[in-house]
């Protein structure tokens, strides 16, 4: 690196700090998804039809949205297993308000996002200031959120949810130029998060915290406030995701909402090349990981295979994706030592 002579020192230093804009993992994922889409297009009659791709993109949205927050959290070396509980609380409170007082779209979205942010701040403060491992903190708050969620459900389903959220991806109201609005929102937020992680000091600090929290603190990074914010952002993203889940569901909401989302999201994040040990990761990879998982589950159904088989493929993809990442990392370290 030192041998490089560039006329603009500012660019050199930035280029030296920044990781490559596109990682190897992302290129591979794009390739795998493209191959899968082509194969599924050949072997199934309707995979590439708009009637199939549209819902697929809408269904990617909740996992990808929560995945943005989860990527931030995992980059700092943490984890958040409470997202399913948060999603349930956001969805059920918003649904109840929609049914009882018919709040307009923007208010409903705000309610969901603010609730998500508040629940996320509970996680954030406990993780940052209690110095207990995040997985334990969020196990605890997961149970807490489930309690709040089930209480709000009050042992029944929420029925007659109005079509306020249709603009997020249901029917004709939910698409712009053929692209589901939910997916457009995902792409916009992923782009913003990518820019934030790469070009702002606060974003790059997250990598420093995940690489070595103590060293980050000694260089003057306010580790604890940053951690709180990371969990708050996750909650906010869950709030947005809950609205998409309400939009893509039926007019009634049952108590299984959000069930198992935490593992789905973590799977998408790690397939996308984010290191579970912290310090390395990308939101673009997370979006691609979510796309891959959704492609597999739609593809398995359209091929007429048992739908449960898709989870087997997800497991295999996790092993392959992370295995490739481990091998690349090893090779990178070896070449780094030689030079």
């Amino acid at each position, binding site marked *: 690196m030192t041998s490089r002579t560039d006329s603009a020192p500012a660019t050199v230093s930035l280029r030296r700090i920044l990781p490559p804009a596109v990682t190897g993992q992302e290129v591979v994922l794009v390739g795998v998804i493209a191959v899968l889409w082509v194969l599924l297009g050949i072997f199934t009659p309707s995979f590439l039809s708009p009637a199939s791709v549209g819902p697929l993109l809408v269904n990617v949205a909740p996992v990808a949205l929560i995945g943005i927050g989860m990527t931030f959290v995992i980059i700092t070396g943490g984890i958040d297993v409470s997202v399913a509980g948060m999603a349930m609380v956001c969805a059920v409170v918003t649904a109840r308000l929609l049914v009882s007082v018919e709040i307009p779209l923007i208010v409903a979205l705000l309610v969901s996002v603010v609730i998500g942010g508040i629940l996320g701040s509970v996680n954030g403060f406990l993780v940052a200031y209690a110095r*207990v491992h995040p997985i334990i903190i969020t196990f605890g708050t997961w149970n807490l959120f489930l309690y709040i969620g089930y209480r709000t459900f009050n042992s029944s389903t929420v029925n007659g949810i109005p079509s306020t959220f249709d603009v997020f991806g249901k029917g004709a109201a939910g698409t712009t130029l053929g692209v589901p609005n939910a997916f457009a929102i995902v792409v916009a937020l992923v782009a913003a998060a990518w820019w934030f992680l790469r070009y702002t000091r606060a974003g790059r600090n997250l990598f420093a915290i995940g690489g070595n929290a103590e060293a980050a603190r000694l260089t003057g990074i306010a580790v604890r406030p940053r951690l709180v914010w990371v969990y708050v952002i996750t909650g906010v993203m869950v709030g947005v995701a809950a609205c998409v889940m309400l939009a893509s569901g039926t007019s009634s909401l049952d108590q299984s909402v959000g069930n198992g989302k935490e593992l789905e999201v973590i*799977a998408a994040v790690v397939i996308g090349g984010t290191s579970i040990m912290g310090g390395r990761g990308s939101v673009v990879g997370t979006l691609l990981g979510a796309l891959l998982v959704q492609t597999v589950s739609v593809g398995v159904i359209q091929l007429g295979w048992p739908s449960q088989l898709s989870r087997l493929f997800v497991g295999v993809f996790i*092993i392959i994706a992370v295995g490739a990442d481990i091998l690349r990392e090893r090779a990178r370290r070896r070449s780094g030592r030689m030079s």
Partner: protein
Amino acid sequence: MSTSLPEQRPSGAWPRIRAWIDGGGLLDRRAVIVVLLAVLIVVMVVLDVAGVTTAPLTTDYFAASLINIVPLALLAIAELFVITTGDGSIDLSVGSMVSLVGMVFGILYGTQKWDFAAAAVVALLVGALLGWINGFLTAYFRYPALITTLATYYAYASIALVITNASPISGPRIQELYGAAQSVELPLIGAYVPLVPLGVFTFLLPVAVIAWLVLNRTTYGRQLYAIGTNSTAASWAGINTRRSQLLAFVISGVISALVAIYTVAQFASARPDAGTSGPGMALPAITIAVLGGVAITGGVGRIGGVLLAALLIVWMNASILIVVPGNAGSQLQFLALAVVLLGASLVDVTNSRSRRARARQSTSAGGAGGVAEMADSAASRAE
């Protein structure tokens, strides 16, 4: 966690108790749980006398609720083995292993009419194989355990559902197994103590005793704690850290297989989603292990603490249900678990902080505190 400082042991009962209390013994996880259990029982007796409970509170009620402790405590012991090896080890796949092995056992015993013993042995072998896959990927390919077991959680759960097209296996032979989970009267002292579910004696106690012996009386057990505390130091001391970690995952698979057989008996059918429906079995098992004092970073954890934690959770849930029956009660169980888990973690933090502060004081008072401080910083790292 070790609370006794490396000082000379005082002799005599009372000084020893004093030293234990001064060393923060009352904040020891097992002591905390015993106190919570006592509080729970006192509160319940008071509520019963006051007539708040919806049914008469009997020892039989508490004893019968122990049917739920068997799978929880067994899987928590499995997590104890895995988590203790450190380096972020954890097993998210235990619930899926319960589902898959349960289906294998159901097919062999219920559909293929094998001997019980033969079917059980094959089931345990399958469990060992599933655990071996987890361990091999983690220990030899250096996958983070969270990733390995997340992947196998999906894979095993999927296979369990696919092999019978998602339909459960039942039948007369499997229904007869229900006897294994029923409450029984103990021989000799049976008339004087409440009826305890048979599974506690046939499954839980043998595993707990063997696990305790393995952890505390064998070289392998001590190696587990060593690699969990500092795997580099352990490998320099001649321990084959990879093999030890692999074996911990295999043990977790075998214990999951035992739970699978028990679950088939308890529900009188082999269900393909036995360990993964709802919140699944893995997260509650990890919660109980952590509550019982297993440090998520490895190297610390005891069977006694895990059993006490399982007992606390099971009795707490049973108590809640007898005061607040129905859905409201089962909702309240989530809140109670959250409060206990978060509370216990926070108590730990204040505990280790005050210990660190004490160590700092004694260092400044004289040089003798150095060892204690080292032990303390090791303890705080373990949290």
